[in-house]
């Protein structure tokens, strides 16, 4: 087993397009690290550089204690699961899993032992003689994971492995990947644009945007204390509401003339200066009363079953509030929102950085 260390890794494509702009990251041995971000944020490029499928333009990638910048993918002791599975269509499931071992000159009985073992873990034993085309999407996904497992690599790399599956299967496979990673204890790096996958799978969540890391932390940390406005609106569903506000004084901001208290606020902000106030739809209490509250004009309601989403405007800005079904009448036009000072996030309008306590 080994951890992965990235030191100011850069990727510059022809035409001076910088896809990854100096990323430094330490991934501990045995942990599950998820790279998440919108498409084009450089997460896949980063993963492919770790895999050795892309050359590294600058910086250093280490697997364990070994710098692998110039090492062939086959010699990096990694295994990768691709989005479209990339199974060899002309080989049986058994041969697909055995191919990498065969190329390494592993003895036949050892190959058989490992493939059987992986097939047992993944419950694909009945399909070993079939060709990939005779399998369903979920089964192919398992074979692709089996191909990674039999190699007993130092690091697993997953490149959006679930995005070709339907929603139900995706949830099921997500749980299985997590369970498998726990059981095997192999360092894993997983790329996705789906924030639910990112939150549920990761020990370490890395949010990326524009070729740079926005924030690294546990899913709870990233959710509870987003470091930038981008992270705040990217993680969480529905996304965090951002309202324009002004600083009133220590621990107080005003939004459209309504004053609210804030727990996590940087000292020394100039009263009267502009600030962005972030509130999660699930963190404000619709219809509540309290020391700080906002009033909202409701436009329409979305039914989600257990909860309802009220869409409308607060101080002229779009706002969404989540409430338990039945708590508020659906035809309500005006809502009072109670705001817990601990749940208010403040961001600098210029730098978009969090203005919390240092």
């Amino acid at each position, binding site marked *: 087993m080994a951890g992965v260390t990235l030191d100011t890794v850069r990727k510059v494509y022809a035409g001076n397009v910088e896809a990854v702009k100096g990323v430094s990251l330490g991934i501990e041995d045995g942990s599950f690290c998820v790279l998440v971000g919108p498409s084009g944020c450089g997460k896949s490029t980063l993963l492919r550089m770790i*895999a050795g*499928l892309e050359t590294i333009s600058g910086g250093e990638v280490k697997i364990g204690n070994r710098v692998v910048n110039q090492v062939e*993918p*086959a010699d990096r002791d990694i295994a990768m699961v691709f989005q*479209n599975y990339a199974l060899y*269509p002309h080989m049986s499931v058994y041969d697909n899993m055995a*191919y990498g071992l065969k190329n390494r000159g592993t003895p036949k009985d050892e190959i058989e032992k490992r493939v059987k073992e992986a097939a047992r873990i993944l419950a694909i034993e009945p399909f070993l003689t079939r060709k990939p085309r005779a399998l369903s999407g979920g089964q192919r996904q398992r074979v692709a994971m089996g*191909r990674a497992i039999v190699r007993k690599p130092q690091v697993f790399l997953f490149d959006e492995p679930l995005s070709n599956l339907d929603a139900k299967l995706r949830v099921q496979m997500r749980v299985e990947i997590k369970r498998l990673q726990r059981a095997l204890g192999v360092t894993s790096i997983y790329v996705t644009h789906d924030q639910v996958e990112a939150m549920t799978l990761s020990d370490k969540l890395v949010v990326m945007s524009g070729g740079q890391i926005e924030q690294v932390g546990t899913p709870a940390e990233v959710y509870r204390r987003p470091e930038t406005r981008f992270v705040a609106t990217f993680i969480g569903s529905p996304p965090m509401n951002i309202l324009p506000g002004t600083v009133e004084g220590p621990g107080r901001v005003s939004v459209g003339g309504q004053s609210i208290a804030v727990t996590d606020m940087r000292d020394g902000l100039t009263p009267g200066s502009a600030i962005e106030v972030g509130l999660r739809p699930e963190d404000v209490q619709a219809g509540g009363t309290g020391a700080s509250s906002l009033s909202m004009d409701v436009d329409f309601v979305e039914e989600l079953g257990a909860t309802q989403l009220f869409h409308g405007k607060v101080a002229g800005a779009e706002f969404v509030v989540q409430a338990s079904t039945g708590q508020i009448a659906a035809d309500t036009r005006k809502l009072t929102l109670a705001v817990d000072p601990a749940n208010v996030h403040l961001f600098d309008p210029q730098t978009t950085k969090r203005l919390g306590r240092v």
Partner: protein
Amino acid sequence: MVENRPFGNFIAYLTLALGVFIVAFPVYVAFVASTYDSATISNGNMSLIPGDQAPVNYYRTLFEGTARTSGQSVGGMMVNSFIMAMGIALGKILISILSAFAVVYFNFPFRKTAFWIIFITLMLPVEVRIYPTYKIVADLGMLDTYTGLILPLIASATGTLLFRQFFMTIPDELLEASKIDGAGAFRFFKDTLVPLSVTTIAALFVIQFIYGWNQYLWPLLITTKSSMQTIVIGIKQMLTTQDVLTEWQIAMTTAVLAMLPPVLVVIFMQRLFVKGLVETEK
């Protein structure tokens, strides 16, 4: 779509039947002619029902040939033709699959240029470059050899193009997966590309085998010994005799024999590549 137009169907089938008749009738006549003796054909008494001379004619054609004309047994000519056609077909496949592999999967300077040069040779069929090709083959002492028959014809832009198009449809991830699985370029070629290309290879083999089998001008130029004659040239020579009567029954038997290998190749390989087309899923 539900279609129920009996008259329309009738017209369609009639047209098809007419087409088949036009193509098949001369072939049938050739077959019938190969079952009569020379005299019956010459005096115009040949009927459309096969006669009883088939065993004699086919035996003579295959093993003795027209002693009075070229003096070469058609069996020998068929062997020559078969070696040439196989050589051309297999050579073309080998050359074009390798060059397509290079053009698609390797990043070397002037890759595009290389591809376009190959592409341009499409405009230069054998007939256009026949004099320089002849000169080279003659200088290398390859006249009257199988190498001379085969080698100049195996460069194939069509094949390269076909394989290139096919390789472009293979997802990049497959290459990446085999890189991670520790397969180098050649192993990827051998273990993944070739097995996936079987249907393309089969299709190309059919086309190129027939192309090679039907070569006329090139073998005519470079073979002088009668032992190197191919069957297509053999037929031609049987028809142009100076002093003696053309042995039509032998000529027709030869024609029927000349048709057989391409027909067999089509029938056999077609099954393979239709099966492949239905089964392949990438």
